[in-house]
């Protein structure tokens, strides 16, 4: 339970600074510190148990199906890291209180910082692989926030982005690796995973898993070649650098390697990848650090090289090297954190971090200088300081390294060279800043920092000394505990004494000292030599690379999505062709076994006319009006075909729709060019023709194959139940209003919505009307020819009567609400054509929108009516009445439904056409637009 709180407290703690943001800065800092402090206390309380050799663990189910549990696990390694995270974290909080200026948003900063702390704790305490990854990514994110804290600075943004991208990518690799491990082991529980090392190492996928996990670790721990992001993360406020980029986050990668050491290490592959990467990084970092003029830059590269050192140690596959690694983790955390803080103080008090300006600060801040010098000495590995001890162990390990066979001698040599440079840059840190003449035009005159800003540094430096002098007592137990949980077994013998007598490691240390000092003394030449090489700015390179890639993507996308509908349609239709043609190829016999109808002359002629007029529509398509007339011929013939093949309702519908469509097309054509320019090049034409031909062919074939095969369908049911169950003899109509009433409801909804949408379009439309026709003749002045007006208006009542007739008989004979509606609208449109919009508008003031609405409403309501009788939506009701002298007649809910259809159709068509007509009339409808 305590474990949970150790994690939860800081999490809740993130809210504290946010809520306290209005308070004074010291108070914020104090309040912020409470949660981590309590967590630390809790940790120390549970620590004894761990020292007694048990592994504390608690776990709760979270998302079992994903294998993700909230599982906490505290062993030696976790304890060590948790201590570092919380301990140094608290110091950082104190330090940041003084580092941040008044204009920085302190609450936010602390919130981010604690969030990060939580994430780190989550990593080290987690007992479930997925949960580990969860917190791993959380560190990337929170560090992004911290690095970009001064978001107005370009380098802060870029640095943060770079860090996020690199570590994020690593995180994805890690996820893959962890999932793979989980798959191999069959569980994501860390305990089980750690228990199945052999299974893993012998599994075929081991190399992949290893590489993936290491990618994660290396990217996080800034190992070559992923090291480049770390220096640019220095754009962060120094407390962040001290915490994330020395003590904790960059150690997460190390932690990961240590964590999985028992199951992944011990193979050739592990040695080669890990140790060689480590060595490379060690040398590179140490060398580059020397040439950095920025204090933090120097420290950053030194961090890189020390991380390389630890990695190298972990890679060397011997138990002692592992112990050394763990020991150096501790030491590096301590001295590097203090160095960063010192650097921060210098920066804070002198206004710059450039060592070319910073000189002889000893005079101004002797106390800080002393602290910094001790820490730097420890970094250089000077005896009596903690850095010295782990470095000795390191040298010792390099010496009995045999895996490289006859080349093994290289390891100690290269290690020494690395050490030489680390001495050199440490020397520079000391001499170039605190001595070496007078400061050169500093922004401020430096002086000692506020009392409490120094305290953290003092504590850490004290630790450097104490650990350096009494290692065995102070760090011995913790070290052995942590190391044993890394090795996962009995520890080898090792002594933490300062003096092992004169031996090779000591000699190497001495060489390093002297060599380092020598190099620093003659640095001018080295700097001059280094100046010959251009110094690439990783930020620029990285950004450039990303931008080039983005541009490339944009190019590709532009090529693909070239905004040409013709291409899109072509692809769509081509896909359709392929998908339909594929199966049809397998079909061996196109013709089925159903006896076919004989061809009669009339139908033959009809087909001929249909074909010819369709072709004419295409061939004459550039003369738009002509092709429009042709189109309506096609429509006419199609409806004749429907009539021919015993579908009178379809014939009627097709006829009326076709005429309304034509009127619509005419209205539109008036505002469009009267002819289509010739712009398709021959290749395009051939392409389209062949595609069209092929699709037509395939559709025709399918159609033929289909209708020459027998069909047993559900329709018999409709024929049988139409009268008894639907109360109508016109089965088609009964299907429409009863069996499949929902389709009809949807269909009229579509019509109504279309009308609304079209009205939307029209209201905002600005079109000029052409002053002459295509021949250049002016329009006839005779707006409303007399004869047309007279005849149309006398036809109107007749037409309405007919539509009533069609409507009423619909249920039993061809007809119905839809056709009736179209007849009505056509009749009214005829009035518009003959008499004009204004004439009609003045005389019949109907808001067609309401007609549409009420039509739909009636239809829906009719459907809902059946609810009153406890029947489902659209359940129809009908009955026959036979009152005296009126005669037998039927009443059916379907008729009411059909009335809804009727109204919707009328409303929709008129809403469209009438408003389209208004388009060129004086009053523009745009006034209606507002609300």
């Amino acid at each position, binding site marked *: 339970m305590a474990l949970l709180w150790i994690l939860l407290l800081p999490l809740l703690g993130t809210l504290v600074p946010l809520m306290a943001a209005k308070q004074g800065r010291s108070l914020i800092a104090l309040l912020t510190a409470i949660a981590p402090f309590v967590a630390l206390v809790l940790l120390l309380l549970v620590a004894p148990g761990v020292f007694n050799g048990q592994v504390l663990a608690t776990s709760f189910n979270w998302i079992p199906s994903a294998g993700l549990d909230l599982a906490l696990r505290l062993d030696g390694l976790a304890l060590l890291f948790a201590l570092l995270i919380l301990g140094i974290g608290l110091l950082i909080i104190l330090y940041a209180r003084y580092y941040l200026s008044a204009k920085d948003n302190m609450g936010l900063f602390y919130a981010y910082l604690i969030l990060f702390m939580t994430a780190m704790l989550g990593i080290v305490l987690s007992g479930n692989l997925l949960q580990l990854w969860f917190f791993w990514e959380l560190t990337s994110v929170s560090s992004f926030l911290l690095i970009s804290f001064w978001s107005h600075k370009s380098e802060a943004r870029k640095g943060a982005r770079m860090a996020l991208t690199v570590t994020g990518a690593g995180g994805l690799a890690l996820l893959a690796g962890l999932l793979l491990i989980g798959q191999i082991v069959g569980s994501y529980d860390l305990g089980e995973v750690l228990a199945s090392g052999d299974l893993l190492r012998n599994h075929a996928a081991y190399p992949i898993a290893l590489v993936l996990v290491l990618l994660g670790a290396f990217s996080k721990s800034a190992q070559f070649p992923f090291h480049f992001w770390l220096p640019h993360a220095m754009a962060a406020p120094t407390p962040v650098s001290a915490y994330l980029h020395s003590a904790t986050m960059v150690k997460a990668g190390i932690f990961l390697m240590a964590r999985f050491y028992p199951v992944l290490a011990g193979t050739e592959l592990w040695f080669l990848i890990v140790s060689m990467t480590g060595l490379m990084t060690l040398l590179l970092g140490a060398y580059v650090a020397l040439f950095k003029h920025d204090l933090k830059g120097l420290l950053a590269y030194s961090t890189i090289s020390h991380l390389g050192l630890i990695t190298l140690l972990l890679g060397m596959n011997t138990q002692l090297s592992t112990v050394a690694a763990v020991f150096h983790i501790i030491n590096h955390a301590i001295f590097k954190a203090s160095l960063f803080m010192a650097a921060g103080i210098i920066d804070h008090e002198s206004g710059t971090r450039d060592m070319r300006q910073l000189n002889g600060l000893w005079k101004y801040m002797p106390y800080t200088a002393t602290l910094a010098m001790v820490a730097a000495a420890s970094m250089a590995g000077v005896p009596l300081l903690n850095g010295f001890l782990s470095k000795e162990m390191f040298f010792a390990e390099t010496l009995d390294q045999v895996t490289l066979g006859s080349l093994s001698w290289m390891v100690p040599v290269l290690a020494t060279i690395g050490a030489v440079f680390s001495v050199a840059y440490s020397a520079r840190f000391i001499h170039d800043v605190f001595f070496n003449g007078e400061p050169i035009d500093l922004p401020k005159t430096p002086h000692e920092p506020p009392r409490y800003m120094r305290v953290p540094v003092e504590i850490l430096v004290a630790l450097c000394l104490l650990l350096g002098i009494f290692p065995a007592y102070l760090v011995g137990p913790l070290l052995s505990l942590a190391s044993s949980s890394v090795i996962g077994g009995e520890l080898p013998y090792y002594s933490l004494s300062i003096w092992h007598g004169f031996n090779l490691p000591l000699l190497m240390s001495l060489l390093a000292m002297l060599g380092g000092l020598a190099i620093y003394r003659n640095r001018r030449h080295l700097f001059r030599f280094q100046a010959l090489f251009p110094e690439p700015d990783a930020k620029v390179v990285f950004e450039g690379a990303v931008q080039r890639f983005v541009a490339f993507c944009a190019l590709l996308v532009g090529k693909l999505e070239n905004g040409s509908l013709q291409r899109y349609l072509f692809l769509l239709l081509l896909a359709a062709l392929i998908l339909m043609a594929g199966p049809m190829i397998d079909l061996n016999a196109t013709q089925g076994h159903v006896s076919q*109808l004989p061809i009669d002359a009339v139908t033959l002629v009809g087909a001929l006319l249909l074909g010819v007029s369709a072709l004419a529509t295409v061939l004459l398509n550039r003369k738009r009006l002509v092709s429009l007339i042709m189109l309506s011929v096609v429509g006419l013939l199609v409806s004749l075909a429907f009539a021919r093949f015993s579908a009178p309702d379809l014939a009627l519908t097709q006829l009326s729709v076709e005429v309304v469509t034509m009127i619509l097309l005419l209205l539109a054509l008036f505002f469009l*060019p009267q002819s289509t320019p010739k712009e398709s090049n021959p290749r395009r034409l051939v392409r389209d023709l062949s595609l069209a031909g092929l699709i037509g*062919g395939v*559709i025709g074939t399918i159609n033929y194959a289909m209708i020459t095969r027998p069909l047993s369908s559900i329709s018999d049911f409709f024929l049988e139940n139409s009268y008894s169950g639907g109360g109508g003899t016109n089965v088609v109509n009964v299907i429409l209003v009863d069996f499949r009433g929902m389709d009809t409801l949807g269909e009229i909804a579509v019509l109504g919505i279309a009308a609304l949408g*079209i009205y939307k379009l029209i209201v905002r439309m600005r079109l000029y009307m052409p002053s002459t026709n295509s021949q250049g003749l002016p329009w006839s002045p005779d707006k409303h020819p007399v004869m047309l007006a007279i005849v149309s208006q006398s036809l109107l009542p007749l037409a309405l009567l007919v539509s009533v007739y069609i409507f009423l008989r619909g249920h039993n004979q061809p007809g119905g609400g839809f056709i009736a509606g179209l007849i009505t609208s056509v009749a009214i449109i005829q009035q518009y054509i003959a008499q004009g919009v204004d004439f009609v508008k003045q005389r019949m003031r109907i808001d067609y929108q309401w007609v549409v609405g009420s039509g739909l409403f009636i239809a829906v309501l009719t459907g809902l009516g059946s609810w009153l009788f406890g029947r489902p939506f659209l359940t129809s009701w009908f009955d026959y009445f036979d009152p005296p002298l009126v005669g037998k007649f039927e009443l059916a809910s379907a008729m009411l439904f059909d009335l809804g259809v009727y109204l919707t159709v009328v409303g929709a068509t008129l809403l469209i056409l009438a408003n389209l007509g208004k388009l060129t009339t004086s009053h523009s409808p745009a006034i209606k637009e507002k609300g």
Partner: protein
Amino acid sequence: MEGLYSFSVGLLTACGVFLTLRGRSFPVVVGITLLSYAVNLFLFSSGRLKMDGAAVLGASQSYADPLPQALVLTAIVIGFAMTAFVLILAMRSRADLGNDHVDGRLPPSPKDQK
């Protein structure tokens, strides 16, 4: 008869497809209308062809499959609504963009296409 019918459907489809692939809005609309005629005939025939069998009870001895007829009716109406919308949209695009090309911008002239 079935062959003749299928041929006509295929022909209509081809014509519709070809026009749909044109670059200007009006021919495209005409093409879509043709295509929808073809579709309706196709869907209609899925109930097989029948003469003298209107699905009105008592009007004939054996009836044509009424279901596809109902479906086609729905399809016709929906097709009408859609055609109307795309047509007005084409006008709107002429109004907003100053040309009647489906892409809203005129293509490069044939010369610089090559």
